[in-house]
C-alpha cells in the first residue's frame, strides 16, 4: 500500500441493511449466503471452490470513527493487545496453532471498523473459525501486554512521523476533517496512547465486541450451511446486551486552508483535496471516476501532465476511499523540493481544468475500464473476497453492492464528471510538507 493512504480500498453505493437469510446473485459465479444470528451477529459465507483454502474476516464496528482526540488509536491498540493471548493460549501459541493448519491470523484497527483476519487450508475451516472466535471472544487483555504494546505502538507512531508522506497524509486529514474523528490517525498520537490505560482497553473491547456490531465473513472451499451452523455454535452464545446508540459525530467543515510543514526529507509532499461523498451517496461512483481521470495510473492526468510532460513530480496520483461518513478526494504529488512551487501551481491548474472543460468520451471510457478492472483485480483472493463481503455489510450496504456499483460506474456521463468536479472540488484544502 502506498505510504499515504490509511484506508482499505473498496467502493460503494446506496443500500439498506439486509436481514435474514437470502441468496445473492453476484457478478461472479459463486453465491454468498448472509444470515443474522438471533443475537444480531451477521454471518456471510461465499463458497469458492477453486482452491482448497479458506479465509475469514471478522469486522467489528470500532475504529477511528468512534474515537476522540483523547482516545485516538484505541481501537487499533485493543487489537494489538488482543493478539497477545487468549484464555486458552498465549499469542505465540495461537500463531503456532494456526500455522499448523497451514494458516495465519492477525488483528488490526481501521477507520470504520476493526478486523480479525485469518486463513488456512480449507479442510481446517472449523478449527480456524474456532481460533477466530477464541481471539474475538476470549482475549486476556493483560495489563503487562498493554504496557508492552503501548511502547511498540509509540515507536510505530514515531516511525510514521519520520516518514514524509505518511506524516503529510496525517496532517492533511487533520486539516480537512477538523472536529470530525476522521481527522485522527488510526495509530493514535503519543498523547492519546500515553493516556489509554488497561481499564480503557478493557472497556473499549467490551463496548466494541458486541454481537450486533460484528460481521463474520468466510470465503473458500467450504459448504455454506456447515459454516453457518458452526458460526451459530461459536458466536451464537454471545449475549446481546442492548448496545447503545452511537453518539452523533461532529460534522467536518470544508474550508480553503493551506497548511505548510517542514521536515528533513528527500522529497516535498503536496496534497490538495476536499470533502467528498460517503460510499452510500448517489455521487459516489461519479467521484470515483473523477478521481480516476485525475490520478488513476499512468494515463491519469496528474501522471501524464505533471510527471510525463512537465517532469514536475515523481509520484502523481489520487485517492478516494469509500467510507461511511464524508470521504476525502485527495490529489497527491511527491516532488523534488526545487519543483514544489511549480508542481503545486500545476496541480491547481489541473483542478481548474477539470472544473471548466468536459472530459472526452475516450478519457471517460478509459477511466471506467481502469477503475472496474482494478476493482475486479482486487477481488481475486479469498482473503480479499471475505473482507469485501464483511466490509459492505459493516457499512450497511446490500449484498449485491458490487454489481450495483459496476452499473453506477458504467452510467457515469461526461456531464456527471463536470458536475461532481464543480461540486466537490470547489473548496480545496492544501497541505505541503517542504523538504529541508
Amino acid at each position, binding site marked *: 500500500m502506498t505510504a499515504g493512504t490509511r484506508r482499505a480500498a473498496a467502493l460503494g453505493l446506496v443500500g439498506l441493511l439486509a436481514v435474514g437469510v437470502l441468496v445473492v446473485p453476484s*457478478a*461472479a*459465479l*459463486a453465491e454468498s449466503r448472509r444470515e443474522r444470528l438471533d443475537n444480531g451477529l451477521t454471518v456471510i459465507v461465499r463458497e*469458492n*471452490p*477453486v*482452491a*482448497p*483454502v479458506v479465509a475469514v474476516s471478522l469486522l467489528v464496528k470500532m475504529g477511528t470513527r468512534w474515537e476522540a482526540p483523547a482516545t485516538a488509536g484505541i481501537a487499533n491498540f485493543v487489537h494489538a493487545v488482543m493478539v497477545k493471548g487468549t484464555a486458552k493460549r498465549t499469542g505465540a501459541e495461537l500463531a*503456532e496453532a494456526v*500455522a*499448523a*493448519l*497451514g*494458516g495465519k491470523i492477525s488483528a488490526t484497527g481501521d477507520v470504520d471498523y476493526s478486523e480479525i483476519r485469518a*486463513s*488456512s*487450508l*480449507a*479442510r481446517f475451516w472449523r478449527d480456524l473459525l474456532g481460533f477466530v472466535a477464541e481471539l474475538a471472544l476470549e482475549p486476556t487483555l493483560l495489563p503487562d501486554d498493554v504496557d508492552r504494546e503501548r511502547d511498540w505502538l509509540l515507536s510505530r507512531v514515531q516511525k510514521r512521523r519520520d516518514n514524509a508522506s505518511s506524516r503529510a497524509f496525517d496532517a492533511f486529514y487533520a486539516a480537512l476533517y477538523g472536529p470530525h474523528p476522521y481527522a485522527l490517525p488510526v495509530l493514535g498520537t503519543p498523547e492519546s496512547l500515553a493516556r489509554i490505560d488497561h481499564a480503557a482497553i478493557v472497556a473499549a473491547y467490551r463496548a466494541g465486541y458486541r454481537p450486533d456490531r460484528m460481521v463474520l465473513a468466510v470465503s473458500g*472451499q467450504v459448504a455454506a450451511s456447515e459454516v453457518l451452523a458452526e458460526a451459530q455454535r461459536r458466536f451464537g452464545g454471545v449475549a446481546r446486551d442492548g448496545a447503545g446508540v452511537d453518539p452523533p459525530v461532529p460534522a467536518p467543515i470544508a474550508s480553503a486552508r493551506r497548511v505548510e510543514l517542514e521536515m528533513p526529507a528527500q522529497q516535498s509532499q503536496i496534497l490538495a483535496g476536499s470533502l467528498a461523498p460517503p460510499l452510500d451517496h448517489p455521487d459516489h461512483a461519479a467521484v470515483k471516476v473523477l478521481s480516476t481521470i485525475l490520478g488513476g*495510473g*499512468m*494515463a491519469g492526468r496528474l501522471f501524464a501532465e505533471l510527471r510525463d510532460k512537465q517532469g514536475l513530480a515523481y509520484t502523481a496520483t489520487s485517492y478516494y476511499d469509500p467510507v461511511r461518513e464524508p470521504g476525502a478526494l485527495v490529489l497527491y504529488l511527491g516532488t523534488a523540493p526545487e519543483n514544489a512551487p511549480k508542481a503545486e501551481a500545476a496541480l491547481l491548474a489541473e483542478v481548474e481544468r477539470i472544473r471548466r472543460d468536459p472530459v472526452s468520451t475516450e478519457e471517460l471510457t*478509459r477511466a471506467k*475500464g*481502469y*477503475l*472496474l*478492472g*482494478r*476493482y*475486479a*483485480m482486487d*477481488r*481475486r*483472493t*479469498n482473503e480479499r*473476497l471475505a473482507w469485501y463481503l464483511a466490509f459492505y455489510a459493516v457499512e450497511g450496504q446490500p449484498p449485491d453492492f458490487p454489481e450495483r456499483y459496476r452499473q453506477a460506474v458504467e452510467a457515469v456521463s461526461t456531464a456527471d464528471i463536470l458536475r461532481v468536479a464543480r461540486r466537490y472540488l470547489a473548496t480545496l484544502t492544501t497541505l505541503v510538507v517542504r523538504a529541508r
Partner: protein
Amino acid sequence: MNPVVRTFGVRGALLGAVLLLASGCAAVGAYSATSAGPPMPVREVLPNGVVLIAQEHRASDVVAVQLWMRMGGRDEAPDELGLAHYIEHMIFKGTPTYPPGSIDRLIEGFGGTSNAFTSYDTTHYDFVVPAEHLRATVALLADLAMNASFPPDEIEREKKVVFEEMNLVEDDPDKFLVRRLYEVAYAPHPYGRPLLGTREFIERLRRDQLLAFYRKHFVPKSMAVVVVGAVTPGEVRSAAVATFGRIPPGSAGRPELSPPPTIDRSRRVDVQRPEQQAYLGLAWKTAPTGDEDIYPVDLLTYILGDSPSSRLNQAVRERQRLVSSIEAGYGAWQKAGLVTVNARLDPENAEKAEAAILDVIRKVRETGVTEAERQRAIITAESSYAFDIETAEGLAKAYGQAETTWTLADEVAYLGRLRQIGAAEIQAVARKYFGDDTYARVRFIPTGPPR
C-alpha cells in the same frame, strides 16, 4: 506499476523460504481431498508446436494470460550473459502494431497488470486482465512473441534500468547471498551464471545480438501459452489458434545441457560487505525436476528451515542463539536442484553457526525425522501450494512452470505423491545429498567495526 520493474527469478514459495532465486518446479501439486472433482487443465499442441494450456477458474472476473518460453539464462553463450533477461525487458518496448509505451498503457487501461520473469530454464510473460479482454490480450502477447521491434533508443535507455536492477540486488544482502550461492556452487556451469548478466556485456549490447537471440529462441516449439480464469477453454482456443497458431513453425534452438558437477570444499567464498551483520549461506546440490527425490527433498527443506518451529530455527536460533534468522529453501531446476540454508548472524559466530547447522543435518541423517514433523511439512507444502493456486495467475504459473521444466501430469499429481512420502525416505535423501563436505558456502563479512 512501473513497467520496467520486471523482477527476475522464480517462485520460492513452495520451497519453504522466500529466496528470490530459488525456483521450484517442485512447486506443483493436486487439489486437496476435500475438493469435489477439481477441474483439470486442457492441454493441446497446435500444429506449429505451440503448447496451449487452458483452465476455467472463476474465483473472480479476471483471466491470467501467460507465455512460457523454453528459453532462459542457460541458453546464452558464455560471452553474452544477460541476453535472455534483457529481451524480457525489451519485449514490452513495442512492435509495429504497438508503439513504445502503448503496451503498458493498454494493459493499464484494462485495469490489468503485466509482469515478466527470467530464470535459468525459462522466461515467462504474464498479464492479468478482466476476462472480457481475453482476445485482445492473447493477440498482444502473440504479437510480442513474433514482432518485437527492439527500438534502438529504447535499448540504450533500458541499460540504465538493468544496471539499477543489478544495484538493487547487490544492495539487498538476502537476495545477493542466494545469487552468489548459485554462482559459487555451479560456475562455470550455466546454472552458476548471473541472470542479469555482466555490466561489461550489457554496456556494449547491440540490437543485432538481441534480434539474433530473439529469432533463434522465439519459435513455436519453445512456447507454452497458459490461460486460466473466468473464460472457457473453447474461448481460449479460439483466441490462441487465431494468433499463436499462425506463427510459422521453426526448429527449436535449445542445445542439450549436462548437469552441473558435484560440489566440493573448493566452492567457498567470503565477501566483504558494508552491512553491520554477517550472512552465512550454505548450499547442497540435490534432485532436479523430474527426479523422484524432489518430494522427500521438498519435505526435508520444510522440516529444516521453514518456520519458527523448524529444526534449524529451534536449534541454531532459539537454543544456541547463534543466528538472528535462519531459513532453508529448495530450488529445483531441470538439471539439478539446490537446497540453500541462509542465516543472518554476528560475524564472530560464523564458524559456530556453520558447525551447528551441520550438526542439525547430521542428526537427520542419523536418526531421521518424526511423524509429527513429516505431517507438519506436508501441511505447509499443501498450504503453500493451495494459496498459490487460489488466483488465476498463480495456477497459470504452476502449469506453465510444470509444462516447461517438468510435466503437467506430474504437477497435477504432486500433492498426492508428497503425502505418500514416509519418514524413511526423508532420511534417505538427507543421507544421499547432504554431506559434511559436499556444500558450497558464501559468507558476507562486515567491513565496518562490529556494533
